[in-house]
């Protein structure tokens, strides 16, 4: 097994972190382990390690395509690697690739459950409604009820337009 940081040397340090019912594994070579400051295998979190991880697949990808930069605030992928924080709310969109993997190491899930601001509550309802309408449309088409399908199609279009401008009150 190759080290998951340098991907060159054989991995000899194997770390497993269990938080609740989630298991995270990391395989490192001795040198990378030392560089990451792993001498006490109980005293660190895998998330910290992954945050500062160099040479991950995402980084290689973006390095080739030129440095990814947030159009809103100018924050770069390299800065995120260094600071472990984003530049602005838009960065979540800009750096969405690979974000889910990172969030998985930090959290219970990767989708928000909990409070939703009133301005967005409509959006949630609209999304559910959209889903339902799309199912209904599929059924109408299957049943060759084209009159009904046309009505549904218009309603879906209308909803999608409203959803394209989230947060507007």
């Amino acid at each position, binding site marked *: 097994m190759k080290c998951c940081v340098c991907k060159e040397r054989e991995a000899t340090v194997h770390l497993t972190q269990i938080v609740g019912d989630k298991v995270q594994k990391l395989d490192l070579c001795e040198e990378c382990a030392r560089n990451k400051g792993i001498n006490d295998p109980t005293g660190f979190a895998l998330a910290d390690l992954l945050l500062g991880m160099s040479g991950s697949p995402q980084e290689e990808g973006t390095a080739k395509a030129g440095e990814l930069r947030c159009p809103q605030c100018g924050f770069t992928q390299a800065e995120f690697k260094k600071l472990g924080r984003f530049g602005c709310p838009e960065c979540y969109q800009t750096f969405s690739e690979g974000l889910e993997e990172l969030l998985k190491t930090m959290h219970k899930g990767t989708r928000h459950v*909990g409070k939703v601001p009133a301005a967005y509550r409509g959006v949630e309802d609209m999304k559910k409604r959209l889903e339902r309408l799309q199912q209904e449309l599929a059924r109408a088409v299957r049943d060759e009820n084209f009159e009904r399908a046309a009505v549904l199609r218009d309603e879906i279009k209308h909803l999608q337009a409203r959803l394209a401008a989230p*947060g507007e009150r």
Partner: protein
Amino acid sequence: MDLREFLAPAADVARRTGPQDRIVLSSRVRLARNLKGFAFPGWAKKQDRIQVYEKVAAAVAEVPTLSGCFCESLDKLSALDKQLLVERHLISREHAARSGGSGVVLNRQETLCLMINEEDHLRMQSLRPGLQLRQAWAEIDALDTELEAHLPYAFSPELGYLTACPTNVGTGIRVSAMLHLPGLVLSEQINAIVQSVNKLGLAVRGLYGEGTEALGNVFQVSNQMTLGESEQTLLEKLDKVLRQIIEFEENARATLIEKNPKMVYNHIGRAYGILANAHIIASKEAMNMLSLMRLGVDLGMFPGVDRSLTDELFLLIQPAHLQLLHQEKLQAEERDIIRADLIRSRLRSVSRPGPPLPAGGSTE
């Protein structure tokens, strides 16, 4: 507005009571929120930070819950003022290091405190004495709902409230309690407890939060994960764990008294001896000794002494609070002398500890 006049006297703070306050010093719920279209404070230019500060301050002024509150930019507060807020656990040490473009908001009852432009644009917290997580959540939830009508929050239906650090994204909530656990420390069970709490995905920290020592046997337990679980679920989970820790602490105390009473009396007696007789004492030693004396009060070894005595001293002996009692700027060595003087004078009317009350009688 003068912060020092606004803050309640330490004696009043120490007299605030709540359920389970024998072990749970305080409960806290913090929410992280950011404004749409603005860079996070750590990346924003000063002008943008000032603009965010002004937007939030304007919203604060609109919200009925916060009427009559203290609201100030950090450049208007002295280093001493900021340190006072840290010692009262109202703002973080990181926030105290900030200046213009950041701010603090505090309500009269000192139950609500907002940090503007800390790591996030807005970090609002609700604080309560004792174990009151649900009440703290209800209060901060209501304030958050009031504020969102005035502030366009950065929110994504998939990822929830967007925060500077992805470790806070989602609910942006941190639920925590400050626990006094001398029994678990004396019986050397604390490490095992900390480890098992960690395994549940919860963090255990020291007196002043992240990266600080557990001075005076005070530990902070809080959630770490904020995405994929609702506020309610988290709250229930933490509440359950806290109640278990309380039980462990009570059991540890009972077992110590039953199996090794001399060791316990020795620790408490020596702590009293040092506090009542020292002429120079550093804050770290004073806090650790006061913690043992607090345990003695809990065990009934100081008849007629209320817990508020040790709790008030715990606050008063901190550097900024000590400085407050004196005009001239104190050096560390002078503080150690004044701290010892203050403790001795407060303990003058406290007699030496006897055996715990339930045991009855005197062996002296």
